[in-house]
């Protein structure tokens, strides 16, 4: 649920990075945190275990310029990926405006990707939100493994798998969160469609 402050001329939206454990959600945020100008960014907060797994969420507030005189603030959140933390995921998802689904390109993660997308759908439904109505971008992460000894899934297989679970196709971005390609493209894409949807909701 976007927060619009008319007196401060500010729109705040919440974007959540979702996906199976170890797919690179936190790495996405870390990359943004490293590369973006500190002037447009707040402090990144990470609540993780000592094993570097996200325990609750990571949080990174960003300022993304102005639209029609309104300052756009985007708050990026990640969820813990491990199956065990479903209740925490539900909490982080509350009031979400847009979702980036980070899918793991490794072949062994084919089923976990699908399970995680279904889990997202269920958790949103509990909050009376419909995944097919929500701004969503799919990021195919770990593309840097291509050409190495690790078997990875083709773009086509992954897109078919994930689009098969959705009513309409959504934007798909190829990325390597560790090296950087695709991270800002994903952020740009999700910001664009999220703000568009908030704007549309405002008008109606």
């Amino acid at each position: 649920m976007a927060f619009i402050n008319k007196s401060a001329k500010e729109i705040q939206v919440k974007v959540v990075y979702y996906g199976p454990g170890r797919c690179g959600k936190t790495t996405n945020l870390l990359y943004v945190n490293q590369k973006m100008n500190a002037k447009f960014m707040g402090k990144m907060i990470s609540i993780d275990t000592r094993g570097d797994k996200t325990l609750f969420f990571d949080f990174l507030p960003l300022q993304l310029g102005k639209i029609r005189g309104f300052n756009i603030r985007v708050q990026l959140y990640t969820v813990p990926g491990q199956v065990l933390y479903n209740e925490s995921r539900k909490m982080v998802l509350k009031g979400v405006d847009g979702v980036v689904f980070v899918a793991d390109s490794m072949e062994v993660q084919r089923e976990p990707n699908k399970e995680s997308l279904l889990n997202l759908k269920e958790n949103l439904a509990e909050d009376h939100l419909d995944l097919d109505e929500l701004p969503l971008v799919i990021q195919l992460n770990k593309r840097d493994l291509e050409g190495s000894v690790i078997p990875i899934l083709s773009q086509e297989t992954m897109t078919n798998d994930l689009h098969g679970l959705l009513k309409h196709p959504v934007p798909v971005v190829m990325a390597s969160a560790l090296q950087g390609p695709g991270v800002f493209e994903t952020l740009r894409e999700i910001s664009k469609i999220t703000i568009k949807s908030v704007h549309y909701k405002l008008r109606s």
Partner: protein
Amino acid sequence: MAAQDVVIKDIFGEADKVEILGKLPAILWAYLETARLLVRNIDTAPGSSARSAKDAEKILGILESAAEYLGNESLKTTLGGHSKMLSALGRGELSEQDFVKTFVEDLPRLEGMAGPRPESLPDPLISSWLADQATDAADRIRKGRAGDLVVSVELLDEIRDYLAAEAVSEGIRSILVVDNAGTLVINIGDKTDLDAVSLAAVAAANFAATEKIAHLIGERDFVLLFYKGHNESFHFTRAGKDYIVVTIFDNSLSLGLLRLKITEVAQFLIGKLPKREV
């Protein structure tokens, strides 16, 4: 009284494997860098190969377990060959010149398996921290046990008996011992309808979140975490670095008495429960 205990399961096992597989190409490149450095060392200063050979062997150990999980026979064979060569070199059974000759021939093949070279490598000699971490994870995977904490059934029984006798008394409904990552170690008490697994995960997340709040205002942590409900209340406390004790109690019990009891329990648990290995 219904007591339910859960031996810590390998909940992160799969995650560790996924992580090590994802890192395999990067580790392969780090190994190749180390291997080339070793060859250079032998070329420039014969007789000084011991140290870089040790570094290479260390990374090789990680790679071998990753290759085993991957099930790639050709990678396994290549790495096995390197391992033999390196130990023969270490024992002095293989001369440095012979070693370099066979070793160098093999490197391009490994490069092919590592895929495109990343723009930035962690360090020519992969930082020892990364190597140690990865070795630990690889070791745990090799032994088929990736959970960080192992609590024996005997110890669980002992703790459960202690908690039942000393702590679960009038007023205290339930005690949960949870590790930092939200894994339920012990759940004891008469609240049978409790979804203890979810409660444990959320309680750990909540505890970590309040610690972050403490950091933001310049405190190390909050000493007392207490939530008062209409009929029942929650009390959270740390037991050492790795565990959190969650107590659910009736509002008829005084908070002071509860804190006294739980402090004793926490002390007992610190003495008994194993520390995290990693």
